[in-house]
């Protein structure tokens, strides 16, 4: 009897020991949903097979509420081990001292020297101390989607400059047939897109010069006027209220021939129109001939300080950004892989939009002009404060220069306040 009890105790002890050996880490996906969750589930399966001592618990957070979820978790001291983040709220999380600084880990990692420098820089610029608080995984870039079939019909070649784009938009417009050459995002999210357009035209290389915002540069105002001039002449009248969804609906519905958005709409556009009817080009250049790009928020992964297993968490991050996983992920979502080893992958050669964006991003002549997404007020300034003003510009009720002056003043003040708080 005693022997039986001893054996049972040993068995139970062995079971408990076996359970303790396995480390569980929690991973929060910052854009959970039917599109991305299965991709992560596959990657987690691969990671667990390669790392039998670690178990990953996946939690998909809806993208619209992810910042609030992180804030609550940080305030309540209940953060995940690894979290998906974008540069649009990275500074906010790092500012709460919630994230591990990963420069040193990256230095000793297999990822060293394998990440696109431009994306690394974009992530680094969001922090007040110039340190890295997330590892970039996916880049996104503004592109102009255009109906290659309609361009071919009219014998129009892909525009390289803004003047050529305006010309093409005019030629492709036939209001009687409900056909328009271009669509303007005049509603939610308009100013962020407009700034990308303005800097691509002006060739201004810095968002701030001597602490002052360069947004009100007369060359930027020139572009705003050019776009506003297209309104109703080469765009639908409803564009003044256009948000992303309406813009995509107009483009995929066949009403408009060109739409400025980013690689995020690849799935929607390709699913509806197919590669034989649609193509992507970078935002055109201005008279300076320079390629100046305002980068989109970069997606990446952060290790949270509050997690109990930061080493296992880092291993998972390394795995997610490794060439194989990073390639698999970006192929599925149609974005720019941060890992440079993925460059030559077959799928990139077959995806002209990503190939083109990767080419622009890695071109030494390209100048990145990061928007100050690190400013806590950036979102309210470019949305609540100035989107209605841009609508006034479109409706001819406000001069473009006055609109940009107001925007620049707010951005300058916000930057100065941020510098003081640093």
């Amino acid at each position, binding site marked *: 009897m005693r022997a039986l009890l001893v054996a049972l105790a040993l068995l139970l002890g062995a079971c408990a020991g076996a359970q303790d050996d396995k480390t569980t880490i*929690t991973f*929060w996906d910052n*854009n*959970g*949903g*039917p*599109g*991305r*969750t*299965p991709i992560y589930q596959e990657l987690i399966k691969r990671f667990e097979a390669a790392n039998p001592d670690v178990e990953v*618990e*996946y*939690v*998909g*957070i*809806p*993208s*619209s*509420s992810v910042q*609030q*979820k992180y804030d*609550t*978790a940080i*305030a*309540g*001291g*209940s953060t*995940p081990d690894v979290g998906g983040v974008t540069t649009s709220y990275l500074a906010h999380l790092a500012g709460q001292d919630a994230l591990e600084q990963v420069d040193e880990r990256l230095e000793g990692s297999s990822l060293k020297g394998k990440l696109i420098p431009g994306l690394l820089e974009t992530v680094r610029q969001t922090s007040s101390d110039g340190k890295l608080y997330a590892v970039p995984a996916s880049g996104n870039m503004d592109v102009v989607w255009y109906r290659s079939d309609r361009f071919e019909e009219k014998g129009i070649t892909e525009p390289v400059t803004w003047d050529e784009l305006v010309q093409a938009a005019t030629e492709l417009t036939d209001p009687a047939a409900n056909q328009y050459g271009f669509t303007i995002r005049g509603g939610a999210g308009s100013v962020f897109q407009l700034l990308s357009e303005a800097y691509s035209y002006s060739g201004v290389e810095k968002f701030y010069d001597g602490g002052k915002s360069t947004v009100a540069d007369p060359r930027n105002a020139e572009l705003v006027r050019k776009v506003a001039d297209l309104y109703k002449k080469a765009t639908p009248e409803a564009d003044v209220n256009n948000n*992303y*969804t309406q813009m*995509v609906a107009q483009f995929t*519905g066949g009403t408009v021939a060109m739409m400025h958005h*980013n690689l*995020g*709409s690849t*799935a*929607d556009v390709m*699913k*509806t129109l197919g590669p034989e009817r649609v193509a992507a080009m970078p935002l055109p250049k201005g008279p300076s001939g320079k390629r100046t790009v305002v980068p989109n928020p970069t997606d990446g992964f952060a290790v949270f300080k509050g997690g109990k297993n930061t080493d296992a968490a880092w291993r998972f991050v390394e795995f997610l950004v490794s060439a194989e996983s990073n390639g698999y992920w970006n192929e599925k979502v149609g974005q720019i892989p941060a890992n440079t080893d993925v460059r030559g992958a077959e799928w990139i050669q077959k995806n002209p939009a990503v190939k083109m964006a990767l080419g622009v991003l890695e071109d030494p002549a390209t100048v990145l002009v990061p928007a100050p997404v690190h400013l806590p007020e950036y979102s309210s300034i470019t949305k609540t404060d100035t989107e209605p003003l841009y609508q006034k510009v479109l409706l001819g009720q406000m001069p473009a220069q006055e609109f940009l002056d107001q925007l620049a003043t707010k951005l300058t003040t916000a930057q100065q306040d941020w510098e003081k708080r640093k």
Partner: protein
Amino acid sequence: MTQTLVRPEVALDPPPPPPRRRRQRDPSRYFRLHLPLVLYLLFTLIPFYWMLVFAFRPAGETALVPWPITFEHFDTVWNGIGFGLFFQNSLIIAVGTLVVVTVFALMGGYALARFRFRGQRVFLLALLCTQFIPGAMLLIPLFVIFKGAGLLNSLTGLVIADTAFQLPLALILMSGFVRNVPVELEEAAMVDGCTRLRAFFAVTLPQLRPALVAVGSFAFIGAWNNFLFALMFASKQDKFTLPVGLSYALGEFNTDFGALAAGGVVAAVPVVLVFAVVQRFLVQGLSAGAVKG
């Protein structure tokens, strides 16, 4: 001499029918009353039409009538997003909240209506004031309390959170309903030998049926629709609820309208059914509480 009384013919005629009111109605009534009501009805129903069209129409089609219908979006939400589990969680939380809120509101509402105690008015005012506090403000304090109590990531925790949020209004409503039941009825029962508890169960409770339905429905729907608490107090995929599942269809760069609409149908069906069953009591209960409460 006998006289035969012959009823005059006139007397046999039935009295002339009262003039029918409808004939006298002003025809403009249709424009003043019916037309606005029909327009309002359309305004209310169009979102439902939109939801049904998108839910049953294949992706990428633009027909106004979804034919042939497809169930692909329901497959996406049920199997792809995992609505099966979310539905079960929502149901457990909503029914749990309904039961707890109704029982507590009944007890508290009775006490507020039948007893006078020190600080009663202040207590009622405090209950009313809680309604001005948005849920988002309670989030972090509640989160910290729940974490300390080990209630995060549990359906019980969500029932407690929803109950805390719903109970003040339920108490105020219920006390109004109880006041409407004449206290004399209970007193009569007590004169006949009932204890207060027996009098309550035998006399007052049956009168409160509409109130129970009204308060219970509010609690059920409030908990069923609560997105914020479900997302914030749960950090495990298997503890999320339907509203969280619905928001999965709204991605950062794309919106799956088919899945959103199909999820909306799944989420709306229980609420519509609850209303269909209880709406008679609900209207009765609401008006009683509103006028005399």
